């Protein structure tokens, strides 16, 4: 064992340590001071605490979390929906979405978060729960606007619930995306092709910009 590791060698070099007279079942205690950095950080954290409380709760510098959320939502609406927000809910709105790749992508994202639990990952349908949305057979839909109605209100027989968490623009986008799936013809399970063939949906309207 090298000399430097001997217990006593420490004492001799650094500052002198004083043992207190305490002795508990052989355990002794040094009278060492508390490290300076301990004090500094502890006091620093106390100062931070006071400053934080004052700045966050007693000055207008940090808006409340409700206000921050409202701002975020407003900004996000602009990014997500753009000029769609001014369009009335009609077939033209859906056709416009279908003609715009990024809006369609948004529709797909909503679809994946909302619809796939019943209609399947590829919209191929799930036995007993959701119909295949990729074929030409439709049970509750005669025209594109019926999709909007289904998402908004559900079916009367309660086999499909209303999607109450979506706002109008989200509903338009997811409906347009669902309509765009028609004709991709992913094979679904038995019974998922219920309904009858309906007239083709109107064609997408290509916009000049992404909105």
């Amino acid at each position, binding site marked *: 064992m090298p000399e430097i590791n001997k217990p006593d060698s420490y*004492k001799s070099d650094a500052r002198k340590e004083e043992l207190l007279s305490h002795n*508990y079942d052989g355990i002794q*205690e040094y009278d060492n001071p508390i490290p300076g950095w301990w004090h500094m950080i502890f006091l620093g954290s106390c100062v931070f605490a006071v400053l934080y409380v004052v700045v966050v*709760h007693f000055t207008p510098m940090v808006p*409340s979390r409700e206000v921050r*959320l409202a701002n975020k939502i407003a900004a996000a609406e602009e990014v997500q929906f753009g000029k769609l927000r001014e369009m009335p809910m009609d077939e033209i709105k859906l056709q416009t979405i279908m003609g715009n790749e990024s809006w369609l992508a948004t529709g797909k994202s909503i679809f994946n*978060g909302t619809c796939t639990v019943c209609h399947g990952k590829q919209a191929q349908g799930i036995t007993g729960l959701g119909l295949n949305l990729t074929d030409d057979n439709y049970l509750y839909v005669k025209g594109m606007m019926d999709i909007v109605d289904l998402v908004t209100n559900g079916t009367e027989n*309660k086999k499909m619930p209303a999607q109450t968490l979506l706002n109008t623009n989200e509903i338009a986008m997811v409906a347009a995306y669902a309509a765009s799936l028609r004709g991709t013809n992913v094979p679904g399970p038995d019974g998922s092709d219920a309904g009858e063939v309906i007239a083709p949906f109107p064609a997408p309207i290509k916009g000049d910009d992404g909105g």
Partner: protein
Amino acid sequence: MADIVKKTKSHQHPDKDGLEAFVYDDHIVRMFAWATIIWGVVAMLVGVIIALQLAFPDAGLGVSFLSFGRLRPLHTNAAIFAFAGNGIFAAVYYSTQRLCKSRMYSDLLSKLHFYGWQLIILSAVLTLPFGITQGKEYAELEWPIDIMIAVVWLVFFGGNFMMTLIHRRERHIYVALWFYIATIVTVTMLHVFNNLWVPAGLVYLVQYGEMPSAELALKSYPIYAGVQDALMQWWYGHNAVAFFLTTPFLGMMYYFLPKAAERPVFSYKLSIIHFWSLVFIYIWAGPHHLHYTALPEWASTVGMVFSVMLWMPSWGGMINGLMTLRGAWHRVASDPILKFYIVGITFYGMATFEGPLLSIKSVNSLSHYTDWTIAHVHAGVLGWNGFMTFGMLYWMMPRLFQTKLYSKKLCAAHFWIGTIGMVLYVLAIYAAGITQGLMWRAFDVNGRLSYPDFIETVTILIPMYWIRVVGGLLYLTGAILGLYNMFMTWRTRPEKYEEVVHYAPALSKNYDGDPPAKSRLGANTKLGNAGDKFLQGNWHRSLERKPVKMTLWVLVAVAIGGIVEAVPMFLVSSNIPTISTVKPYTPLELAGRDIYIAEGCYNCHSQMIRPFLWETMRYGEYSKPGEFIYDHPFQWGSRRIGPDLAREGGLRTHLWHYLHFKNPADISENSIMPRYPWLLKNTVNFDEIRGRVDSMALMGVPYGELLLEGKTVEHAKGQALEIAMELEAQGGPSYEETYDKKVIALIAYLQRMGTDISKTPPPVESEVETEGVSP
């Protein structure tokens, strides 16, 4: 010879030299040591089983009492109260006697404590897997067990401990004992105030003169609801970490570390200041578990800033631990016990740095509900509690069994296997937590969620869950080696344990041994001199002679934080603005909610949407305090292994839920939710719903006419039939087959969740409360 001494009451019969003879009770320590290691193996085994279920969901075999939601509380309770708990008791019983130069006050109390505590653990094993739970994390045990805990802890353990201190033969009480005092006082306070309940079975018994079922007999509801219940629960939950997993282990460290290292404690001054700052500050930090929830923001801020201030008080313990090892480093290489201590204390340091970090609101917005928290607590429990306990057990083994340790090599193997297992575990779960947290909040170029399908954020974690299983298995293997080593050591014990007789004088009534403080300043003002005397700390030395006084001061220190947070939350109504459309659950929904609690759904699903865009886009409008006023207990959850359910109501059909409970994987590819076939078979006891509703009414939930007319059962059956018929219409099985099954009640609850807020208020009460105040 030893026998004669044994008969003498330890604190009597001074012999002629004025010395009293006494023998330490090591038998009780041996019993607690065995309980520690055996329950430790059990707790870790259950941990590995549930870890496996996350990687491979069908590992629960579709059996009710093996399902994740029911076993996870068993794992946490066993790890905390059985493994760490018995470890604490072994440490306290061994060290207190020696630090007080006195046998434990009463052998009978010691034994009652031991058997009482094991009975509590056994009760946990016999209730939690069977869905008998209060549904609050780490406070799951039902009310009769709560009473047992209170009696065993405070009367048997606390009483025995305090009486030993009072009858001690050592003038001053050592820092380890301060920490034990803080533990006993605070855990009692936390346990009692978080477990105030109305037992539904007793309510039924009083109302209707009989007890319908054992299930109802054991059922209770907390008197708090919603936001208030959440505050109380995390005041408890956080301080269970503080005063069950920290303070007693610091006490353990202060005794066993200097013993094992054979070195004096680094700094007495530091132990004073970090003790008092720790116990005072810790108690305030609870609300950091509820950042961005419906808890008012001021409470959240209090929780955060006190957590930040807690950093250095916590590190005071680490500094005193590591610095005590100076001069003993050369022995660390050869002594696995010191290795356990070094790694244990290092993990303590890391976890107590990480704690304040996670309590910062913006960090917490990422970490909350993810595995990051799980990694954090496992670094704490496996590293700090586990390794400190193992270090203590190995140090005690040769002393308790009065023989040589069976194998130092096995002990070292335990250390290395445990360390590798622990590191694998926490690294995998840190990665999992951060990955999932980032995926939840990721937006794509179109301003939408990048991962709108929740499952995507789960599937990616599976490889890390497998690593966790391996890490957990390694840690368990280490513990089994420890058990084996202990068993083999025990086998070489002497035929009869030698009982060493110690002698010490009784404490005299009068004592003036502490030198009076003198001001070093010689200042002209009294204040200056008094201040300097205070700073020298002699007053504390005299407090160390008065354990009862010290206990009272500890009580004052730990009571303040809780009072400041809880009292305004209960008295100031603006903290929880009411919402006129939020109504009590129907009887059937209430029964369904109790099934939700019994199955432990809260272990995987939150019911709390935070005010972030990425949450409101995924789950809907963020949660408001007024939505939870009838939630006894609150079910906000702390981890989203599955998605949030706060606004689940109405989103899916009854049939979807029915099929999903039958087998989630049928519907949702890659789902890691287990099957719940028993919910489709087991029936609801409609009659006992009366007891549930009456209990709620007793706590002020306005059931009104329903109760007056005695139509609770009728109403529940009516709603069940309605749902069952709708289920049938949606393509489900015939309503006659399903209406009385548990799944229907649970669906009733799920379809109600979070829907009240969007209902149109009736025209009469059109004055809706508004939060905004106009100037």
